[in-house]
Protein backbone atom coordinates (compact mmCIF):
# COMPACT_ATOMS: atom_id res chain seq x y z
CA UNK A 1 0.00 0.00 0.00
CA UNK A 2 1.20 3.54 -0.70
CA UNK A 3 2.75 5.00 2.45
CA UNK A 4 0.71 7.85 3.99
CA UNK A 5 1.46 10.80 6.21
CA UNK A 6 -0.01 11.12 9.69
CA UNK A 7 -2.69 13.52 8.42
CA UNK A 8 -3.61 11.28 5.48
CA UNK A 9 -3.87 8.21 7.71
CA UNK A 10 -6.19 9.87 10.22
CA UNK A 11 -8.42 11.17 7.44
CA UNK A 12 -8.49 7.78 5.70
CA UNK A 13 -9.51 6.04 8.93
CA UNK A 14 -12.30 8.56 9.50
CA UNK A 15 -13.57 8.14 5.96
CA UNK A 16 -13.64 4.35 6.29
CA UNK A 17 -11.05 3.93 3.56
CA UNK A 18 -7.81 2.02 3.33
CA UNK A 19 -6.02 4.90 1.70
CA UNK A 20 -6.47 8.51 0.65
CA UNK A 21 -4.15 10.87 -1.17
CA UNK A 22 -3.75 14.64 -1.41
CA UNK A 23 -6.60 16.24 -3.36
CA UNK A 24 -9.18 13.53 -2.59
CA UNK A 25 -12.55 14.89 -1.48
CA UNK A 26 -13.91 12.69 1.29
CA UNK A 27 -16.61 12.68 3.96
CA UNK A 28 -15.14 12.13 7.40
CA UNK A 29 -16.69 11.17 10.75
CA UNK A 30 -16.13 13.83 13.38
CA UNK A 31 -14.90 12.94 16.90
CA UNK A 32 -15.29 16.39 18.50
CA UNK A 33 -16.97 19.62 17.41
CA UNK A 34 -16.05 22.72 19.39
CA UNK A 35 -17.72 26.10 19.23
CA UNK A 36 -17.60 29.34 21.24
CA UNK A 37 -19.54 32.53 21.93
CA UNK A 38 -18.61 34.32 18.70
CA UNK A 39 -19.53 31.56 16.23
CA UNK A 40 -21.79 29.39 18.39
CA UNK A 41 -24.99 31.44 17.96
CA UNK A 42 -24.63 31.42 14.15
CA UNK A 43 -23.85 27.69 14.18
CA UNK A 44 -26.90 26.96 16.29
CA UNK A 45 -28.96 29.11 13.90
CA UNK A 46 -27.76 27.11 10.88
CA UNK A 47 -28.44 23.83 12.70
CA UNK A 48 -32.02 24.82 13.58
CA UNK A 49 -32.74 26.25 10.18
CA UNK A 50 -31.81 23.03 8.42
CA UNK A 51 -32.63 20.27 10.90
CA UNK A 52 -35.68 21.84 12.54
CA UNK A 53 -36.46 23.68 15.76
CA UNK A 54 -36.63 20.53 17.83
CA UNK A 55 -33.71 18.71 16.25
CA UNK A 56 -31.14 17.05 18.50
CA UNK A 57 -27.39 17.12 17.92
CA UNK A 58 -25.89 13.95 16.44
CA UNK A 59 -23.98 13.00 19.58
CA UNK A 60 -24.06 14.96 22.84
CA UNK A 61 -20.77 13.40 23.96
CA UNK A 62 -18.99 14.94 20.98
CA UNK A 63 -19.97 18.58 21.28
CA UNK A 64 -17.90 20.96 23.40
CA UNK A 65 -18.93 24.59 23.95
CA UNK A 66 -16.53 27.11 25.44
CA UNK A 67 -17.47 30.77 25.90
CA UNK A 68 -14.17 32.63 25.80
CA UNK A 69 -14.02 35.56 23.39
CA UNK A 70 -16.16 38.41 24.72
CA UNK A 71 -16.55 37.61 28.37
CA UNK A 72 -15.75 40.40 30.78
CA UNK A 73 -17.61 43.14 28.95
CA UNK A 74 -20.72 45.24 29.49
CA UNK A 75 -21.59 44.80 25.79
CA UNK A 76 -25.22 43.61 25.71
CA UNK A 77 -25.00 41.74 22.41
CA UNK A 78 -21.90 39.87 23.56
CA UNK A 79 -23.67 38.79 26.73
CA UNK A 80 -26.77 37.89 24.78
CA UNK A 81 -24.64 35.51 22.70
CA UNK A 82 -23.54 33.63 25.81
CA UNK A 83 -27.23 33.33 26.73
CA UNK A 84 -27.85 31.72 23.33
CA UNK A 85 -25.18 29.10 24.12
CA UNK A 86 -26.60 28.50 27.59
CA UNK A 87 -30.11 27.97 26.27
CA UNK A 88 -28.88 25.53 23.60
CA UNK A 89 -26.84 23.55 26.12
CA UNK A 90 -29.88 23.28 28.41
CA UNK A 91 -32.26 22.27 25.65
CA UNK A 92 -29.83 19.66 24.24
CA UNK A 93 -28.54 18.45 27.61
CA UNK A 94 -24.91 18.91 26.55
CA UNK A 95 -22.43 17.68 29.15
CA UNK A 96 -19.38 19.73 28.09
CA UNK A 97 -20.12 23.39 28.59
CA UNK A 98 -17.84 25.71 30.52
CA UNK A 99 -20.12 28.53 31.58
CA UNK A 100 -19.14 32.05 32.49
CA UNK A 101 -19.64 32.94 36.14
CA UNK A 102 -19.44 29.33 37.39
CA UNK A 103 -16.46 27.32 38.62
CA UNK A 104 -16.74 25.43 35.35
CA UNK A 105 -15.56 28.55 33.52
CA UNK A 106 -12.33 27.91 31.62
CA UNK A 107 -11.36 30.68 29.21
CA UNK A 108 -9.68 30.30 25.82
CA UNK A 109 -11.12 27.26 24.02
CA UNK A 110 -7.91 25.90 22.49
CA UNK A 111 -6.32 25.55 25.92
CA UNK A 112 -9.57 24.52 27.59
CA UNK A 113 -9.96 21.56 25.19
CA UNK A 114 -6.78 19.70 26.22
CA UNK A 115 -7.05 20.69 29.88
CA UNK A 116 -10.53 19.19 30.05
CA UNK A 117 -9.58 16.01 28.21
CA UNK A 118 -11.10 16.71 24.79
CA UNK A 119 -7.95 16.26 22.68
CA UNK A 120 -6.69 12.78 21.84
CA UNK A 121 -4.27 11.26 19.32
CA UNK A 122 -5.70 9.96 16.07
CA UNK A 123 -8.99 11.88 16.31
CA UNK A 124 -10.69 14.40 14.03
CA UNK A 125 -11.55 17.70 15.72
CA UNK A 126 -13.33 20.58 14.03
CA UNK A 127 -13.88 23.92 15.70
CA UNK A 128 -15.47 27.20 14.66
CA UNK A 129 -12.19 28.97 15.21
CA UNK A 130 -9.17 29.11 12.96
CA UNK A 131 -6.76 28.28 15.79
CA UNK A 132 -8.43 24.90 16.32
CA UNK A 133 -5.24 23.68 14.60
CA UNK A 134 -3.57 24.03 18.05
CA UNK A 135 -4.80 20.54 18.95
CA UNK A 136 -2.59 19.00 16.25
CA UNK A 137 0.02 19.01 19.03
CA UNK A 138 -1.77 15.92 20.36
CA UNK A 139 -1.31 13.93 17.15
CA UNK A 140 -4.81 14.52 15.84
CA UNK A 141 -6.31 16.17 12.77
CA UNK A 142 -7.72 19.51 13.95
CA UNK A 143 -8.84 22.45 11.88
CA UNK A 144 -11.09 25.50 11.85
CA UNK A 145 -14.41 25.78 10.02
CA UNK A 146 -17.30 28.25 9.67
CA UNK A 147 -20.85 28.25 11.02
CA UNK A 148 -22.41 26.44 8.07
CA UNK A 149 -19.97 23.53 8.26
CA UNK A 150 -20.35 23.40 12.04
CA UNK A 151 -24.16 23.45 11.76
CA UNK A 152 -23.88 20.60 9.27
CA UNK A 153 -21.73 18.59 11.69
CA UNK A 154 -24.14 19.23 14.58
CA UNK A 155 -26.85 17.47 12.59
CA UNK A 156 -24.87 14.74 10.84
CA UNK A 157 -21.53 14.17 12.57
CA UNK A 158 -19.86 14.36 9.17
CA UNK A 159 -18.09 16.85 6.97
CA UNK A 160 -16.43 16.81 3.56
CA UNK A 161 -12.73 17.57 3.48
CA UNK A 162 -10.18 17.79 0.78
CA UNK A 163 -7.11 15.81 1.82
CA UNK A 164 -4.18 18.25 2.06
CA UNK A 165 -0.64 17.46 0.93
CA UNK A 166 1.79 17.54 3.86
CA UNK A 167 4.78 19.83 4.35
CA UNK A 168 7.36 18.58 6.85
CA UNK A 169 9.44 20.79 9.14
CA UNK A 170 12.20 19.06 11.05
CA UNK A 171 13.90 20.72 14.02
CA UNK A 172 17.17 19.39 15.35
CA UNK A 173 19.09 20.31 18.46
CA UNK A 174 18.50 21.56 21.97
CA UNK A 175 16.61 24.85 22.13
CA UNK A 176 18.86 27.56 23.66
CA UNK A 177 17.40 29.29 26.77
CA UNK A 178 16.69 32.53 24.88
CA UNK A 179 14.46 30.85 22.28
CA UNK A 180 10.92 29.53 22.52
CA UNK A 181 8.53 27.67 20.21
CA UNK A 182 7.22 31.08 19.15
CA UNK A 183 10.63 31.89 17.63
CA UNK A 184 10.55 28.60 15.71
CA UNK A 185 7.12 29.07 14.22
CA UNK A 186 7.75 32.74 13.39
CA UNK A 187 10.91 31.59 11.59
CA UNK A 188 8.90 29.05 9.58
CA UNK A 189 6.17 31.56 8.70
CA UNK A 190 8.81 34.12 7.77
CA UNK A 191 10.39 31.54 5.46
CA UNK A 192 7.28 30.29 3.68
CA UNK A 193 5.08 33.41 3.92
CA UNK A 194 1.57 33.83 5.24
CA UNK A 195 0.19 31.87 2.28
CA UNK A 196 3.03 29.34 2.10
CA UNK A 197 0.97 26.46 3.49
CA UNK A 198 -2.42 27.30 1.99
CA UNK A 199 -4.44 24.06 1.60
CA UNK A 200 -1.62 22.07 3.18
CA UNK A 201 -0.86 20.17 6.36
CA UNK A 202 2.26 21.14 8.32
CA UNK A 203 3.89 18.25 10.16
CA UNK A 204 6.59 19.02 12.75
CA UNK A 205 9.21 16.44 13.51
CA UNK A 206 12.71 15.95 14.83
CA UNK A 207 14.41 15.73 18.23
CA UNK A 208 14.09 19.52 18.61
CA UNK A 209 10.30 19.16 18.55
CA UNK A 210 10.11 16.10 20.78
CA UNK A 211 12.26 17.92 23.35
CA UNK A 212 9.52 20.57 23.69
CA UNK A 213 6.86 20.26 26.36
CA UNK A 214 3.25 19.91 25.27
CA UNK A 215 2.44 23.62 25.69
CA UNK A 216 5.31 24.63 23.43
CA UNK A 217 4.16 22.07 20.85
CA UNK A 218 0.73 23.70 21.01
CA UNK A 219 2.35 27.07 20.23
CA UNK A 220 3.93 25.55 17.10
CA UNK A 221 0.67 24.06 15.84
CA UNK A 222 -1.39 27.11 16.86
CA UNK A 223 0.23 29.33 14.30
CA UNK A 224 0.16 27.09 11.22
CA UNK A 225 -2.98 28.99 10.18
CA UNK A 226 -0.81 32.12 10.01
CA UNK A 227 0.94 30.42 7.09
CA UNK A 228 -2.46 29.45 5.64
CA UNK A 229 -2.08 25.84 6.80
CA UNK A 230 -5.11 23.60 7.13
CA UNK A 231 -3.71 21.74 10.10
CA UNK A 232 -0.49 21.40 12.06
CA UNK A 233 0.44 18.05 13.49
CA UNK A 234 3.03 16.37 15.70
CA UNK A 235 3.08 12.59 16.08
CA UNK A 236 2.30 11.47 19.64
CA UNK A 237 5.09 10.37 21.97
CA UNK A 238 5.38 9.75 25.71
CA UNK A 239 5.02 13.46 26.49
CA UNK A 240 1.71 13.52 24.59
CA UNK A 241 0.40 10.37 26.21
CA UNK A 242 1.36 11.43 29.73
CA UNK A 243 -0.60 14.64 29.27
CA UNK A 244 -3.59 13.08 27.50
CA UNK A 245 -3.94 10.16 29.92
CA UNK A 246 -3.73 12.42 32.96
CA UNK A 247 -6.58 14.53 31.54
CA UNK A 248 -8.73 11.79 30.03
CA UNK A 249 -11.43 12.07 32.69
CA UNK A 250 -14.14 10.84 30.35
CA UNK A 251 -12.15 7.62 29.76
CA UNK A 252 -12.32 7.79 25.97
CA UNK A 253 -10.28 5.41 23.87
CA UNK A 254 -8.05 6.58 21.07
CA UNK A 255 -5.52 5.25 18.54
CA UNK A 256 -2.00 6.50 18.02
CA UNK A 257 -1.14 7.21 14.41
CA UNK A 258 2.29 7.85 12.89
CA UNK A 259 3.55 8.78 9.45
CA UNK A 260 4.53 5.72 7.38
CA UNK A 261 8.17 5.40 6.38
CA UNK A 262 8.48 6.59 2.80
CA UNK A 263 5.39 8.84 2.93
CA UNK A 264 5.53 11.73 0.45
CA UNK A 265 5.90 15.35 1.52
CA UNK A 266 5.29 18.22 -0.82
CA UNK A 267 7.98 20.28 0.91
CA UNK A 268 10.63 19.49 3.49
CA UNK A 269 12.82 21.78 5.51
CA UNK A 270 15.31 21.06 8.25
CA UNK A 271 16.28 23.57 10.94
CA UNK A 272 19.12 23.50 13.44
CA UNK A 273 17.50 25.25 16.41
CA UNK A 274 20.85 26.22 17.90
CA UNK A 275 21.42 28.50 14.90
CA UNK A 276 18.13 30.43 15.20
CA UNK A 277 17.68 33.91 16.66
CA UNK A 278 14.92 35.52 18.72
CA UNK A 279 12.57 37.07 16.15
CA UNK A 280 9.55 39.35 15.91
CA UNK A 281 6.85 39.67 13.25
CA UNK A 282 6.57 43.36 12.42
CA UNK A 283 3.29 45.09 11.60
CA UNK A 284 1.02 44.16 9.82
CA UNK A 285 1.56 40.51 9.00
CA UNK A 286 2.78 37.43 10.89
CA UNK A 287 5.22 36.68 8.07
CA UNK A 288 6.92 40.07 8.33
CA UNK A 289 9.80 38.58 10.27
CA UNK A 290 12.86 40.39 11.57
CA UNK A 291 15.58 39.21 13.93
CA UNK A 292 15.24 41.09 17.22
CA UNK A 293 18.70 42.49 16.51
CA UNK A 294 17.40 44.25 13.38
CA UNK A 295 14.57 46.07 15.16
CA UNK A 296 16.16 46.45 18.58
CA UNK A 297 15.40 49.88 20.05
CA UNK A 298 12.04 50.31 18.27
CA UNK A 299 9.86 52.38 20.59
CA UNK A 300 6.83 50.71 22.17
CA UNK A 301 3.81 51.92 24.13
CA UNK A 302 2.55 48.64 25.45
CA UNK A 303 3.30 44.97 26.06
CA UNK A 304 0.76 42.14 26.10
CA UNK A 305 1.25 38.58 27.31
CA UNK A 306 -1.73 36.31 26.74
CA UNK A 307 -3.90 34.34 24.24
CA UNK A 308 -4.05 30.69 23.17
CA UNK A 309 -0.57 30.89 21.74
CA UNK A 310 1.15 33.00 24.40
CA UNK A 311 -0.91 32.73 27.59
CA UNK A 312 -0.02 29.27 28.91
CA UNK A 313 1.92 28.50 32.07
CA UNK A 314 5.13 27.92 30.09
CA UNK A 315 4.75 31.40 28.61
CA UNK A 316 4.28 33.04 32.00
CA UNK A 317 7.16 31.10 33.54
CA UNK A 318 9.40 32.48 30.82
CA UNK A 319 8.13 36.05 31.20
CA UNK A 320 8.43 35.91 35.01
CA UNK A 321 12.05 34.77 34.75
CA UNK A 322 12.81 38.07 33.01
CA UNK A 323 10.52 40.36 35.05
CA UNK A 324 11.52 39.06 38.50
CA UNK A 325 12.63 41.92 40.78
CA UNK A 326 12.43 44.46 37.96
CA UNK A 327 9.94 47.09 36.80
CA UNK A 328 8.26 47.50 33.44
CA UNK A 329 8.62 50.82 31.63
CA UNK A 330 5.41 50.58 29.58
CA UNK A 331 1.83 49.42 30.24
CA UNK A 332 2.05 45.66 30.43
CA UNK A 333 -0.98 43.38 30.36
CA UNK A 334 -0.96 39.78 31.53
CA UNK A 335 -3.91 37.56 30.55
CA UNK A 336 -3.87 33.87 31.47
CA UNK A 337 -5.56 31.74 28.79
CA UNK A 338 -7.65 29.71 31.21
CA UNK A 339 -8.73 29.58 34.84
CA UNK A 340 -6.32 26.68 35.32
CA UNK A 341 -3.44 28.84 34.08
CA UNK A 342 -4.71 31.66 36.32
CA UNK A 343 -4.52 29.43 39.39
CA UNK A 344 -1.06 28.34 38.29
CA UNK A 345 -0.02 32.00 38.42
CA UNK A 346 -1.15 32.09 42.02
CA UNK A 347 0.45 28.81 43.09
CA UNK A 348 3.67 28.46 41.13
CA UNK A 349 6.63 30.25 42.69
CA UNK A 350 10.02 31.46 41.61
CA UNK A 351 12.43 32.72 44.26
CA UNK A 352 9.73 32.84 46.96
CA UNK A 353 7.22 34.86 44.88
CA UNK A 354 4.26 33.52 42.95
CA UNK A 355 4.27 34.25 39.23
CA UNK A 356 1.38 36.64 39.79
CA UNK A 357 3.33 38.49 42.50
CA UNK A 358 6.27 38.77 40.12
CA UNK A 359 4.03 40.41 37.50
CA UNK A 360 2.23 42.70 39.92
CA UNK A 361 5.40 43.87 41.63
CA UNK A 362 6.95 44.54 38.22
CA UNK A 363 4.01 46.87 37.58
CA UNK A 364 2.06 44.72 35.13
CA UNK A 365 -1.74 44.44 35.18
CA UNK A 366 -3.20 40.95 35.44
CA UNK A 367 -6.63 40.30 33.89
CA UNK A 368 -9.12 37.43 34.10
CA UNK A 369 -8.77 34.48 31.68
CA UNK A 370 -10.28 34.99 28.22
CA UNK A 371 -9.28 36.00 24.68
CA UNK A 372 -9.30 39.63 25.87
CA UNK A 373 -7.44 42.04 23.58
CA UNK A 374 -5.96 39.35 21.31
CA UNK A 375 -8.75 40.14 18.86
CA UNK A 376 -9.72 43.61 19.94
CA UNK A 377 -13.28 42.89 20.99
CA UNK A 378 -15.73 45.42 22.49
CA UNK A 379 -14.14 48.75 23.45
CA UNK A 380 -14.09 47.97 27.19
CA UNK A 381 -11.97 44.83 26.65
CA UNK A 382 -8.95 44.45 28.99
CA UNK A 383 -5.78 45.60 27.21
CA UNK A 384 -7.54 46.57 23.93
CA UNK A 385 -5.63 49.05 21.75
CA UNK A 386 -8.19 51.85 21.61
CA UNK A 387 -5.57 54.25 20.26
CA UNK A 388 -3.00 53.88 17.48
CA UNK A 389 -0.34 52.55 19.88
CA UNK A 390 2.68 50.33 19.27
CA UNK A 391 2.38 47.07 21.14
CA UNK A 392 4.62 44.01 21.47
CA UNK A 393 2.53 40.92 22.03
CA UNK A 394 2.74 37.16 22.51
CA UNK A 395 -0.45 36.72 20.43
CA UNK A 396 -0.62 35.25 16.93
CA UNK A 397 -1.94 37.94 14.56
CA UNK A 398 -0.99 41.51 13.78
CA UNK A 399 -3.17 42.36 10.79
CA UNK A 400 -4.49 45.94 10.73
CA UNK A 401 -7.09 46.41 13.45
CA UNK A 402 -6.58 42.98 15.01
CA UNK A 403 -6.05 44.23 18.59
CA UNK A 404 -8.41 47.19 18.27
CA UNK A 405 -7.37 50.37 16.49
CA UNK A 406 -6.74 49.97 12.76
CA UNK A 407 -3.63 52.11 12.88
CA UNK A 408 -2.15 50.38 15.93
CA UNK A 409 1.18 48.66 15.27
CA UNK A 410 1.56 45.17 16.70
CA UNK A 411 4.85 43.24 16.94
CA UNK A 412 4.53 39.52 17.63
CA UNK A 413 7.23 37.86 19.72
CA UNK A 414 7.98 35.19 22.32
CA UNK A 415 7.10 35.81 25.98
CA UNK A 416 10.85 36.20 26.70
CA UNK A 417 11.23 38.94 24.08
CA UNK A 418 7.98 40.65 25.12
CA UNK A 419 9.01 40.68 28.80
CA UNK A 420 12.49 42.01 28.04
CA UNK A 421 10.97 44.71 25.81
CA UNK A 422 8.49 45.69 28.55
CA UNK A 423 11.43 46.40 30.87
CA UNK A 424 13.04 48.79 28.38
CA UNK A 425 10.04 50.27 26.57
CA UNK A 426 11.76 49.41 23.29
CA UNK A 427 12.22 46.11 21.43
CA UNK A 428 14.89 44.24 23.38
CA UNK A 429 16.79 41.01 22.92
CA UNK A 430 15.95 38.66 25.83
CA UNK A 431 19.62 37.67 26.02
CA UNK A 432 20.24 41.01 27.73
CA UNK A 433 18.35 39.66 30.74
CA UNK A 434 19.38 36.02 30.70
CA UNK A 435 22.68 34.83 32.01
Amino acid at each position, binding site marked *: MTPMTLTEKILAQHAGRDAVGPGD*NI*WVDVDVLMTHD*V*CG*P*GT*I*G*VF*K*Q*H*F*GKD*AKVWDREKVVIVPD*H*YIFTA*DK*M*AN*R*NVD*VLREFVREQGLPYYYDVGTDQYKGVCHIALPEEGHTRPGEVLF*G*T*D*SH*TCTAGAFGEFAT*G*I*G*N*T*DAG*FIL*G*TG*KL*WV*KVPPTMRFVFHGQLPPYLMAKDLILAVIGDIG*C*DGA*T*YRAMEFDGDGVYALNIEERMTLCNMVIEA*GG*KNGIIAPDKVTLDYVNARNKHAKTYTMVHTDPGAKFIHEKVYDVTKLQPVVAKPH*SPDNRAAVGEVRGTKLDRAYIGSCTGGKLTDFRAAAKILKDKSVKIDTFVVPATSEVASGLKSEKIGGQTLEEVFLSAGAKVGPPSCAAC*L*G*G*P*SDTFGRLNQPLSCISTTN*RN*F*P*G*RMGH*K*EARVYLASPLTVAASALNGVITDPREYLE
Partner: protein
Amino acid sequence: MQTTITGKAYVLGDNIDTDQIIPAQYLTFNPSIPEEYKQFGKYALSSVPPSQAGLPKGHVPFHTDDEFVSPYKIVVAGKNFGCGSSREHAPIALDAAGIEAVVAEFYARIFYRNSVNGGYLIPLECVERLCERVCTGDELRLDVVAHTLHNITTGERYELKPLGEVAPILEAGGIFPFARKSGMLKV
Protein backbone atom coordinates in the same frame (compact mmCIF):
# COMPACT_ATOMS: atom_id res chain seq x y z
CA MET B 1 -26.06 30.20 -8.63
CA GLN B 2 -26.12 33.18 -10.92
CA THR B 3 -24.25 32.41 -14.10
CA THR B 4 -23.59 35.99 -15.19
CA ILE B 5 -22.98 38.95 -12.94
CA THR B 6 -22.74 42.53 -14.16
CA GLY B 7 -21.72 45.41 -11.95
CA LYS B 8 -19.02 47.69 -10.64
CA ALA B 9 -15.64 46.49 -9.38
CA TYR B 10 -14.14 47.30 -5.99
CA VAL B 11 -10.41 46.61 -6.06
CA LEU B 12 -8.23 45.52 -3.11
CA GLY B 13 -4.65 44.27 -2.72
CA ASP B 14 -3.01 41.18 -1.22
CA ASN B 15 -3.69 39.43 2.09
CA ILE B 16 -7.03 41.05 2.83
CA ASP B 17 -7.69 39.27 6.12
CA THR B 18 -10.96 38.63 7.91
CA ASP B 19 -10.32 41.39 10.47
CA GLN B 20 -10.25 43.89 7.60
CA ILE B 21 -13.34 42.35 6.00
CA ILE B 22 -15.34 42.45 9.22
CA PRO B 23 -13.64 43.79 12.37
CA ALA B 24 -13.97 41.69 15.52
CA GLN B 25 -15.99 44.26 17.43
CA TYR B 26 -19.00 43.63 15.13
CA LEU B 27 -18.99 39.87 15.59
CA THR B 28 -21.50 40.22 18.38
CA PHE B 29 -24.28 40.38 15.78
CA ASN B 30 -25.85 36.97 15.19
CA PRO B 31 -25.99 36.21 11.45
CA SER B 32 -28.90 33.82 11.88
CA ILE B 33 -31.17 36.74 12.81
CA PRO B 34 -32.10 38.52 9.52
CA GLU B 35 -32.11 42.02 11.09
CA GLU B 36 -28.60 41.45 12.39
CA TYR B 37 -27.41 39.83 9.15
CA LYS B 38 -28.00 43.19 7.43
CA GLN B 39 -25.75 44.95 9.95
CA PHE B 40 -22.73 43.06 8.65
CA GLY B 41 -23.18 44.84 5.33
CA LYS B 42 -22.77 48.17 7.04
CA TYR B 43 -19.39 47.28 8.51
CA ALA B 44 -18.05 45.23 5.60
CA LEU B 45 -14.44 46.11 4.68
CA SER B 46 -14.44 48.79 7.39
CA SER B 47 -10.96 47.93 8.66
CA VAL B 48 -9.18 48.14 5.32
CA PRO B 49 -6.58 50.91 5.73
CA PRO B 50 -7.85 53.92 3.71
CA SER B 51 -4.84 53.99 1.37
CA GLN B 52 -5.61 50.38 0.36
CA ALA B 53 -9.37 50.82 -0.02
CA GLY B 54 -10.53 51.01 -3.65
CA LEU B 55 -7.32 50.62 -5.68
CA PRO B 56 -5.45 51.86 -7.61
CA LYS B 57 -5.95 55.26 -6.00
CA GLY B 58 -7.18 54.19 -2.58
CA HIS B 59 -9.34 56.30 -0.27
CA VAL B 60 -12.50 55.15 -2.09
CA PRO B 61 -15.11 54.24 0.52
CA PHE B 62 -16.85 50.90 -0.05
CA HIS B 63 -20.06 52.65 0.93
CA THR B 64 -20.97 55.66 3.01
CA ASP B 65 -21.06 55.21 6.76
CA ASP B 66 -24.77 54.78 7.16
CA GLU B 67 -25.40 52.54 4.16
CA PHE B 68 -25.92 48.80 4.50
CA VAL B 69 -25.38 47.97 0.84
CA SER B 70 -22.47 49.01 -1.36
CA PRO B 71 -22.78 50.21 -4.97
CA TYR B 72 -20.14 47.60 -5.97
CA LYS B 73 -20.99 44.03 -6.98
CA ILE B 74 -17.66 42.34 -7.64
CA VAL B 75 -14.52 42.49 -5.49
CA VAL B 76 -11.25 42.12 -7.38
CA ALA B 77 -8.28 41.34 -5.14
CA GLY B 78 -4.74 39.97 -5.06
CA LYS B 79 -3.30 36.99 -3.21
CA ASN B 80 -4.57 35.12 -0.15
CA PHE B 81 -7.96 36.80 0.09
CA GLY B 82 -9.79 36.11 3.36
CA CYS B 83 -6.81 34.93 5.40
CA GLY B 84 -6.96 34.96 9.18
CA SER B 85 -9.88 33.80 11.25
CA SER B 86 -12.54 31.22 10.48
CA ARG B 87 -15.36 33.70 10.94
CA GLU B 88 -18.16 33.02 8.48
CA HIS B 89 -19.13 36.62 9.20
CA ALA B 90 -16.55 37.56 6.51
CA PRO B 91 -18.34 36.17 3.40
CA ILE B 92 -21.61 37.10 5.12
CA ALA B 93 -20.52 40.75 5.41
CA LEU B 94 -19.65 40.89 1.71
CA ASP B 95 -22.91 39.17 0.78
CA ALA B 96 -24.93 41.50 3.02
CA ALA B 97 -23.21 44.46 1.35
CA GLY B 98 -24.33 43.22 -2.06
CA ILE B 99 -21.14 41.57 -3.32
CA GLU B 100 -21.99 38.63 -5.57
CA ALA B 101 -18.54 37.42 -6.57
CA VAL B 102 -14.90 37.86 -5.65
CA VAL B 103 -12.12 37.46 -8.21
CA ALA B 104 -8.76 36.94 -6.48
CA GLU B 105 -5.46 35.26 -7.29
CA PHE B 106 -6.18 32.67 -4.60
CA TYR B 107 -8.00 32.39 -1.28
CA ALA B 108 -7.31 31.43 2.28
CA ARG B 109 -8.82 28.00 2.75
CA ILE B 110 -11.51 28.67 5.37
CA PHE B 111 -12.85 31.80 3.66
CA TYR B 112 -13.15 29.88 0.40
CA ARG B 113 -14.91 27.00 2.08
CA ASN B 114 -17.30 29.26 3.96
CA SER B 115 -18.18 31.18 0.79
CA VAL B 116 -18.97 27.97 -1.07
CA ASN B 117 -20.60 25.93 1.69
CA GLY B 118 -22.75 28.83 2.87
CA GLY B 119 -23.56 29.81 -0.74
CA TYR B 120 -22.86 33.51 -0.01
CA LEU B 121 -20.82 34.48 -3.03
CA ILE B 122 -18.85 32.97 -5.90
CA PRO B 123 -15.09 32.91 -5.24
CA LEU B 124 -13.26 32.83 -8.57
CA GLU B 125 -9.54 32.72 -9.23
CA CYS B 126 -7.90 34.79 -11.94
CA VAL B 127 -5.07 33.57 -14.16
CA GLU B 128 -3.18 36.89 -14.37
CA ARG B 129 -2.99 39.43 -11.55
CA LEU B 130 -6.15 41.47 -12.11
CA CYS B 131 -5.98 43.78 -9.09
CA GLU B 132 -3.43 45.77 -11.08
CA ARG B 133 -5.46 45.71 -14.33
CA VAL B 134 -8.94 46.54 -13.08
CA CYS B 135 -9.76 49.91 -11.45
CA THR B 136 -12.32 50.50 -8.76
CA GLY B 137 -15.51 51.61 -10.48
CA ASP B 138 -14.89 49.72 -13.74
CA GLU B 139 -18.03 48.08 -15.07
CA LEU B 140 -17.50 44.31 -15.23
CA ARG B 141 -19.39 41.40 -16.69
CA LEU B 142 -18.56 38.04 -15.19
CA ASP B 143 -19.49 34.83 -16.99
CA VAL B 144 -19.22 32.12 -14.36
CA VAL B 145 -19.81 29.16 -16.67
CA ALA B 146 -17.35 30.30 -19.33
CA HIS B 147 -15.07 31.57 -16.53
CA THR B 148 -14.29 34.86 -18.22
CA LEU B 149 -14.37 38.43 -17.03
CA HIS B 150 -15.18 41.24 -19.43
CA ASN B 151 -14.11 44.74 -18.43
CA ILE B 152 -16.76 46.81 -20.17
CA THR B 153 -15.04 50.08 -19.23
CA THR B 154 -11.70 49.21 -20.85
CA GLY B 155 -12.86 46.59 -23.33
CA GLU B 156 -10.38 44.02 -21.94
CA ARG B 157 -11.26 40.35 -21.48
CA TYR B 158 -9.63 38.14 -18.91
CA GLU B 159 -9.52 34.39 -18.51
CA LEU B 160 -10.41 32.98 -15.06
CA LYS B 161 -9.83 29.51 -13.64
CA PRO B 162 -12.77 27.10 -13.83
CA LEU B 163 -14.59 26.52 -10.51
CA GLY B 164 -13.73 22.82 -10.58
CA GLU B 165 -14.98 20.50 -7.85
CA VAL B 166 -16.88 23.17 -5.90
CA ALA B 167 -19.09 24.01 -8.90
CA PRO B 168 -21.79 21.47 -7.97
CA ILE B 169 -21.96 22.85 -4.40
CA LEU B 170 -22.29 26.43 -5.64
CA GLU B 171 -24.86 25.37 -8.23
CA ALA B 172 -26.91 23.67 -5.54
CA GLY B 173 -26.66 26.80 -3.36
CA GLY B 174 -24.41 25.55 -0.56
CA ILE B 175 -23.48 22.40 1.33
CA PHE B 176 -26.99 21.69 2.68
CA PRO B 177 -28.85 21.69 -0.65
CA PHE B 178 -25.87 19.88 -2.18
CA ALA B 179 -25.93 17.13 0.45
CA ARG B 180 -29.71 16.77 0.03
CA LYS B 181 -29.42 16.52 -3.72
CA SER B 182 -26.73 13.88 -3.50
CA GLY B 183 -28.83 11.85 -1.06
CA MET B 184 -26.25 12.21 1.73
CA LEU B 185 -28.67 14.27 3.83
CA LYS B 186 -32.24 13.03 4.30
CA VAL B 187 -33.79 15.97 6.22
